[in-house]
């Protein structure tokens, strides 16, 4: 169940250089949305829509937040949108993260993989630890959002200019050693996800990862967004937009 429409942007913020946070008033979408789902966003002048994760959902206000980085011409166009203007989205799409009442979660985000962690960390609230990794201090975003929701935050950067120096995978191992969670959820580059999946498996922890793939329809109809998964011991092509973007890490065939 999803909607398509042009919705008003009620706020726009710049979180870091080239990274924008827009809040969209779309009560029907917000009502349906779950953490980990995404929106297909139309960029004027471009044929295909851009998939952007739903960073956060406010069902009372009827808004969702989209946090995105300029990566090419389409996101550059999206960045031109301002408060008061309309944004054309199809949302909410795909399968979100599992929320298990009373269980403990570690939410690991790398770079622009951090935004989708906000919604799910909030859902776990005090039971969540958010591990975020960024290139450097200038790229750090969204830490206040986690804190405001009572989520413990652990920040690492590649160059140590903010938080600790190193990779989130190291942070994750440390944290597991401290307190083993019931579930790990993660979003970021494929190499990072693969490492996290390995760590989860080694420690016998359930793990969900959010994947990316180039998309067209975004709803499961065109089959372009294939990803290799294992079902019943057989390798098949699943589809990121419909079967994911969130997958059980054991299902995913990391190249």
């Amino acid at each position, binding site marked *: *169940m*999803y909607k*398509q429409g042009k919705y008003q942007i009620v706020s726009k913020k710049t979180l870091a250089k080239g990274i924008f946070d827009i809040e969209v008033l779309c009560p029907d979408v917000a009502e349906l949305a779950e953490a980990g789902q995404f929106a297909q966003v*139309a960029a004027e002048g*471009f*044929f*295909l*829509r851009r998939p952007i994760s739903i960073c956060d959902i406010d069902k009372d206000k009827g808004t969702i937040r989209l946090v995105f980085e300029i990566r090419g011409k*389409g996101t550059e166009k999206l960045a031109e949108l301002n408060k008061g203007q309309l944004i054309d989205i*199809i949302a909410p799409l795909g399968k979100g993260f599992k929320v298990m009442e009373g269980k403990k979660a570690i939410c690991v985000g790398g770079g622009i993989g951090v935004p989708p962690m906000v919604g799910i960390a909030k859902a776990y609230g005090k039971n969540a630890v958010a591990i975020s990794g960024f290139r450097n201090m200038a790229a750090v975003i969204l830490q206040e959002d986690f804190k405001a929701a009572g989520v413990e935050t652990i920040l690492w950067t590649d160059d140590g200019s903010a938080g600790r120096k190193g990779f989130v995978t190291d942070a994750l191992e440390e944290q597991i050693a401290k307190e083993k969670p019931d579930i790990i959820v993660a979003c970021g580059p494929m190499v990072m996800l693969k490492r996290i999946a390995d760590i989860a498996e080694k420690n016998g922890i359930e793990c969900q990862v959010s994947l990316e*793939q*180039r*998309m*067209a*329809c*975004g*709803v*499961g*109809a*065109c*089959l*372009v*967004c*294939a*990803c*290799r998964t294992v079902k019943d011991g057989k390798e*098949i*092509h699943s589809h990121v937009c*419909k079967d994911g973007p969130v997958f059980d890490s054991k299902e995913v065939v990391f190249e």
Partner: protein
Amino acid sequence: MNRLNVNFCGVDFKNPIVPASGTYGYGREYECLYPLSKLGGISVKGTTLHRREGNPAPRVAETPSGMLNSVGLQNGGVDKFLSYELPNLVTKDTRIIANIAGSTIEECAELAAKLKGSDIDMIELNISCPNVKQGGAAFGTDCTIAGQVTKAVKDNSDKPVMVKLSPNVTSIVDIAKSVEANGADAVSLINTLLGMRIDINTGRPILKNNVGGLSGPAVFPVAVRMVWQVANAVNIPVCGMGGVSTWEDAVEIMMAGASLVQVGAAIFNDPFAPVKIVDGLQKFCEDKGINNISEIVGTVKPW
């Protein structure tokens, strides 16, 4: 008054707008936006004899006013289509076009035989998929083979057979005439134009398949030209497609000679595109006092 009902190969369509094969799945994903009964019909995802996993990803690349795809006919196979998709589709009050593709002539014939007696309304024989190694474009670019496949399917089918042509040929008219001569009840065109995009940062093709099929508004002028040429050369009806995204485009390709129109890539941009086109055509007829949209088919007057 519905001014849009058309008869195509003896099949009544409530309107001439049909989502194109491979762009609409089996309709399930769009039902939450509008009832499928608003559509003239659905050309379902290309079906093969056996389940296929398709090509590795990435399978899509954006292009100016269009896109490339290299799905490579991922589908669950004809048995799954018959047992799982078709029973659902028949309840939707819309026409069902089974798009089929085989790697050999025999496979195509076997596919057609499997669909015998089923509730599908028509067969669309895809001899033009650019994304598979066997069959596909190899069939659609050779007059003799195109004719043979057509005949094999016709001989094994109890449904009207429409043959889907490739635009990647020197003379699409020759292929159209060959499939007509071999019993095709209609032709549909165009399938995608073969294209390529390269990521200049990595120096690698964006598609894992290196090349893929171009569709979307970019190809519309090529589609109009080919529909016009083919409609003037054969005596069987033509189903037109390739870049249609507005009702004006639908009128244009119908004037060029298409009695039925498929809408593909435009749906990715706007999932409501097919129903907006239906509404636009209805209004166009009302405004112009056209009793039935069929009246405009092939009416373009060349200079």
